[in-house]
């Protein structure tokens, strides 16, 4: 290598035909990695913790986990924990319903292939604005101001779901096949008939899949809402934690985990049935799409392209 440099110095075009190693990409990589490391180090300074704290933390955590065993189901069940689990489920379900019922009609008017810009832009802004407000904050405000309890939690979850589901449904509608709509126009159909017979059958399976996904997420959200007093199992967890009743905490945690996993399983099964029922075989693509949809739904954004409904 050095020998070559001696023989052909300063030559930009090596006679061997070997291209030079592209440096730009490499420099970028080094730069970005450095930036990430610096950002992380800066963040570390703000945490007000020593290196010793980091080493101690797992021990402290483990210490608590040990105290949680064996979990004391009897006490928490006597205190009505099962009912609170169900209350969390009700809150999540009603929230999802509110989100689905309000977002579905709205999402048509947010889609570029259906609605004019004058209608579309405000509706999209609405969806985005709703998504940007954490549901926990909304629930907290509703709770403080109205004193409503679980119903305030369901409303907060519902409102947030309008934003996320609205955005996703709009994207499904926008990627739909225009052909059937044209066919209905050609047969003399009205706008409503085009939507009812050309659009809804195309998009509904995918959209219902999103509703179920959102329900899964909302179950988690409703479990959290109890932390701020909006009812459900979260409240029980907080009171047990505050009194440091760790066996009871362990029991409540296991109940939360069971609830979440059971709902995920049932909902996942239903989603697969709906995809299969819509005339497509479940394959790797669906699997993949579902992962990406999960990513999307956590934020209510879509990293994925919604399934093209027509293949």
């Amino acid at each position, binding site marked *: 290598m050095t020998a070559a440099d001696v023989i052909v110095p300063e030559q930009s075009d090596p006679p061997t035909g070997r291209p030079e190693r592209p440096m730009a990409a490499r420099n970028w990589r080094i730069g970005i990695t450095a930036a*990430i490391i610096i*950002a*992380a180090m*800066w*963040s*570390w300074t*703000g*945490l*007000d*913790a020593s290196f010793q704290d980091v080493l101690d*933390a797992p021990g*402290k*955590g483990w*210490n*608590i986990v040990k105290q949680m065993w064996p979990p004391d189901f009897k006490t928490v069940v006597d205190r009505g924990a099962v009912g609170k689990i169900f*209350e969390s*489920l*009700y809150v999540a*379900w*009603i929230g999802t*319903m509110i989100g689905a019922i309000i977002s579905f009609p709205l999402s048509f008017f947010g889609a570029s292939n259906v609605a004019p810009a004058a209608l579309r832009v405000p509706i999209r802004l609405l969806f*985005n604005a709703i998504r*940007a407000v*954490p549901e*926990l*904050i909304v629930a*907290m405000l*509703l709770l*403080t*101001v*109205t004193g*409503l*309890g*679980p*119903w305030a*939690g*369901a*409303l907060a979850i519902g409102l947030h779901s309008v934003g996320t589901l609205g955005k996703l449904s709009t994207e499904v509608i926008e990627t739909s096949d225009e052909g059937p709509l044209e066919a209905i126009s050609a047969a003399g159909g009205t706008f409503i008939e085009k939507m009812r017979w050309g659009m809804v059958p195309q998009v509904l399976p995918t959209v219902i899949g999103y509703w179920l996904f959102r329900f899964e997420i909302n179950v*988690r959200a409703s*479990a*959290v809402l109890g*932390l*701020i007093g909006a009812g459900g199992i*979260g409240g029980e*967890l907080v009171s047990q934690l505050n009194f440091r009743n760790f066996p009871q905490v362990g029991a409540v945690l296991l109940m*939360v*985990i069971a609830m*979440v*996993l059971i709902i995920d399983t049932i909902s996942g099964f239903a989603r697969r049935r709906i995809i299969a029922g819509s005339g497509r075989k479940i394959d*790797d693509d669906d*699997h*993949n799409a579902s*992962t*990406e949809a*999960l*990513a999307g739904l*956590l*934020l209510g*954004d879509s*990293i994925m392209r919604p399934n093209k409904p027509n293949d």
Partner: protein
Amino acid sequence: MSDTAAAVTVRPRKPRPQIRSYVLVIALAAFTLFAARQIGFRWGSFIDMWTNPLWDRFWPVPWDWVFNRHNVFDPLIETFQIAIISTVIGCSLALPIGFAMSKLTTPSTPVFWVSRFVMNIVRAIPDLLWGKLLVTAIGIGAFAGSWALTIFSLAVMVKLFSETVDAADPLPLEAARAAGGRHTPAVRTAVLPDVFPAYVAYALYVFELNIRASLVLGLVGAGGIGRVVETQRSTFNFDRLLGILIIMFAIVIIIEQISVAIRKRLV
């Protein structure tokens, strides 16, 4: 030939919807009504919740207070720090664990099942519950919040990433193994380039998630701006609260726009 097509004249009977579907629809409707009753649903509350006089106390926003560095800006910085360090650590750890959790690249079957099992459990506990748990375990503050978000973002990230790895092209890995590569270098050279763009996209996603989570972590004592929100709420300073909310709102929108822009360039 074309005439034979018209020969089929037997009209099929309309398939009746199965009783199961009726039962399902009725059951879901009944469940909805029941659930609504249980949580205290009232149509009237749609109206009278907005007429509550307390809403008047949200205005005007005391911008002097909001823009006082000490009140909002410093806790916001803390929020960012929690989100950044959790994302960096969580996503870094997710790279090896994600590979371990994919059938394609797992070093051994026990590792595959154990990591899957553990991560599924971790993911089943929502981020804020992690916050509350860790505050109890290691004390109030941003440090506990960072642990909580690190753990949760790790669990989300490995799920997303491992399924991307599952879908990666297995042939290059086969080739690398055929060339006598050890497991880790083989995965590094044959699979990582394929899945890395997705990894970066998901990492940005997790960062967004963490920003949003860290804004509210303070509600359970885990540091950041949420701590201020909780204090102002409990002292009924709703006007200040609205000011903080507007700032939070702006931050979420800005971060999302940046993230979307970067992800667009990645694809």
